[in-house]
């Protein structure tokens, strides 16, 4: 089989832009640490949760494809694989946040009692964090490595072994991810709890990763590597997933909010009251509008899901929504809910994160063939039609 794909025509200007973004992020973080450490650390947590979510979402996408035996996205698999490149960085960032950002977590100074004290004891949280991150990273690395190894030897049994590893990853992820969300984000407000929290984070991270994939595949189609590879049929399928998971996110959001609103327990409603008062209200509503309401109606027609220009716009909107969602989860708890805090630190780091992500993505993507050339399902994926 001969495979046609374009060369990667990446202009120095684009690459430079990403570099400057990343530098801007690092500089604002540094300045923030000196001038407003609480904000800088909160933003650092936000950025790392966001970036980790991109990597984990991409890994979940790969794992779902393997366990379902799906072929349609095989030709695009190098994109989520390269997205996983951010994982070690983001994982490091999370550990650094826990080590250096004790001021974010009230339970590190005022120790909780009872079972909460056991679950939220600092060494235990740190140990869990390291164990969870290590297991996820090892499994994801094993999957990505096997996929790349297949390029060289064309061994179909690597697909089978990746299917098994993917199933294992999904099980491990399901059993650990919610706990990690409790530790890293929910415990910013240690008195509040919601069993939905992990599911909510999963919905957000998978939606965010899908939106990022839309941008990346369309961009890679335009700059070369996925030319002759990416078709409208692939876009249609990713568009459907984007539509579906945007709605799933809203479903989870609504279920959590509605139940807490309805039961009206003082210990639970505080979380939402802090996000509805002091200027947060409009952002709270905007989050729903740009993450679900607009994408839902825009993505409904079939033609939109097959139109790269429209898909890119919706994906950008969803990614802004993803940032806003994490901002709303983290800032009112960690920085303060009296006023909306947004300034150079937040903006600089919000721009820096995608810059850093793209630098790592490009490096990772360039090191390997842009499509899994020896995957037994590649041919079916290239000729995929609805």
């Amino acid at each position, binding site marked *: 089989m001969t495979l046609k794909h374009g060369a990667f025509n990446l202009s120095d200007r684009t690459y430079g832009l990403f570099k400057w973004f990343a530098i801007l992020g690092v500089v604002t973080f540094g300045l923030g640490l000196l001038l407003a450490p609480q904000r800088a650390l909160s933003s650092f947590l936000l950025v790392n949760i966001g970036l980790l979510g991109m990597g984990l979402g991409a890994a979940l996408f790969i794992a779902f494809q393997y366990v379902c035996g799906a072929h349609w996205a095989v030709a695009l698999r190098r994109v989520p694989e390269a997205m996983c490149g951010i994982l070690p960085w983001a994982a490091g960032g999370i550990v650094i946040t826990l080590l250096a950002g004790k001021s974010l977590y009230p339970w590190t100074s005022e120790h909780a009692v009872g*079972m909460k004290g056991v679950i939220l004891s600092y060494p235990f949280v740190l140990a869990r964090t390291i164990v969870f991150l290590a297991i996820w990273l090892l499994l994801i690395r094993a999957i990505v490595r096997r996929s790349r190894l297949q390029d060289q030897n064309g061994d*179909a049994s690597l697909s089978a072994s990746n299917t098994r590893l993917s199933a294992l990853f999904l099980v491990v992820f*399901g059993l650990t991810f919610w706990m990690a969300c409790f530790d890293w984000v929910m415990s910013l407000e240690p008195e509040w709890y919601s*069993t*939905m929290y992990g599911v909510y984070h999963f919905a957000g991270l998978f939606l965010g990763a899908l939106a990022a994939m839309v941008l990346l595949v369309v961009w890679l189609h335009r700059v070369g590597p996925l030319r002759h590879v990416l078709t409208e049929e692939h876009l249609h399928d990713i568009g*459907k997933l984007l539509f579906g998971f945007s709605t799933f996110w809203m479903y989870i959001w609504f*279920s959590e909010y509605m*139940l807490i609103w309805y039961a009206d*327990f003082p210990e639970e409603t505080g979380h939402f009251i802090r996000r509805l008062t002091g200027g947060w209200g409009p952002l709270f509503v905007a989050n729903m509008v740009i993450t679900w309401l607009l994408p839902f109606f825009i993505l409904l027609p079939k033609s939109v899901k097959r139109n790269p220009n429209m898909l890119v716009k919706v994906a950008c909107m969803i990614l802004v929504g993803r940032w806003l969602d994490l901002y709303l989860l983290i800032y009112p708890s960690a920085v303060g809910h009296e006023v909306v805090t947004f300034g150079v630190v937040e903006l600089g780091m919000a721009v820096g994160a995608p810059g850093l992500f793209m630098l790592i993505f490009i490096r990772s993507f360039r090191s390997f063939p842009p499509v899994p050339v020896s995957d037994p399902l590649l041919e*079916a994926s290239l000729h995929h039609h609805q």
Partner: protein
Amino acid sequence: MASVHATISEPLILGDKSPGQVTDDVCSSLERGPHVSWWIALTVSSSMLLLGLVAVVYQVLTGIGTWGLNNTVGWAFDITNFVFWIGIGHAGTLISAVLFLFRQKWRTSVNRAAEAMTIIAVICAGIYPLIHMGRPWLAHWMMPYPNTRGPLWINFRSPLVWDFFAISTYFTISFVFWYLGLVPDLATLRDRLARGWRKTVAGFLSLGWNGSFRTWFHYETVYLLLAGLATPLVISVHTIVSWDFATSVIPGWHTTILPPYFVAGAIFSGMSMVLTLMLIARKTMRLEDYITERHVGAMCKLLIATGGMVTMAYATEFVTAMYSNNQYEQFAFINRAKGPLCWAYWIMVSCNVLSPQLLWFKWVRSNMAIVFAVTILINIGMWFERFVIIVTSLHRDYLPSNWTGYVPTSIEIATLVGSFGLFLTLFLLFCRFVPVIAIAEVKGVLNHGKKPH
């Protein structure tokens, strides 16, 4: 690439059938007289139904004081069975609508029966709230219409009312979806049957189907739209059922994960019930070529996935209760595992968490006897899940002087037996009078896995 081609598209239907053979295979069992085993099964199931009928008449005439409820446990057997049956229904919509949207072609062999099961299970579920009203002849009061009862309206803020709307909408759409899918097959029956009442009925119900391009085009458009409508509906139904509990302030009930947890649990229980029924139908109706090991395997994998979600929810709920430091939350969950009803909890855990783990192994998935046993265990486990959630959260409330137990009365058990009787009777009738396999859809996947000409 021949070997590669084979790995992605093994034939869905075995035996290298021609379209004509498919029609013959599916229709012949309808045209033959029923087998003696069918009569035996019908006798057993209709006797169960009769028993239930007697019990229902008795409790409607006497009042629901015939149940084992008490002041503390005000909700138990009735709602457990209601949630159980509603849950069973979900797999049908998953297979017929969600898997259709995901273009899972293997669904064609099982969707007809699964959808029929949905409709029947929703009927079984609907009986319970009707009885629980105490005066079922006033059931139409659930509907908000201008009436002569003064300012007395239904409580729009009650999830029980939302249930009524959600379930009636879901039932309507599921029924229309199922019937629409049947139309081409009814036309096939109409064309095959000799003159007689069955031909007349099939002719009437097939709505003048003529198999033209236009007819197919309209059919497929509506089918897709209905699939798109049924998908959010099925999620809404069990979400609202979960709200019956989660909107309350009862420890063990008020937990935000309940909606997706209930939806996953419903699909888990429904899929296992579909498998239970299909494994029997496959054997007795000689449908091994249509419902192959591959179909069973795919459904087993769905059981692992949904069972995993349920397991995750159990773990999240337990740990969050501990984390909450709320002694009532903590007690509710410790009481489940260690209290007087802990046997029910451990049945739930071993059936729902442990037994599906067997399905990880391919040799298990291809051994129909073991798969059948696992599905029975899951059916039992999922019934107990509802029992555990409902009864153990209630029976020991805030005041230890209120603590009671709960034992179902013979009337309640007879009602449950009766609902199984109704379920099986209707399913047996379905197998006799309607093509159990979507003939037209299966013909569409006959070429799957064959080399293109």
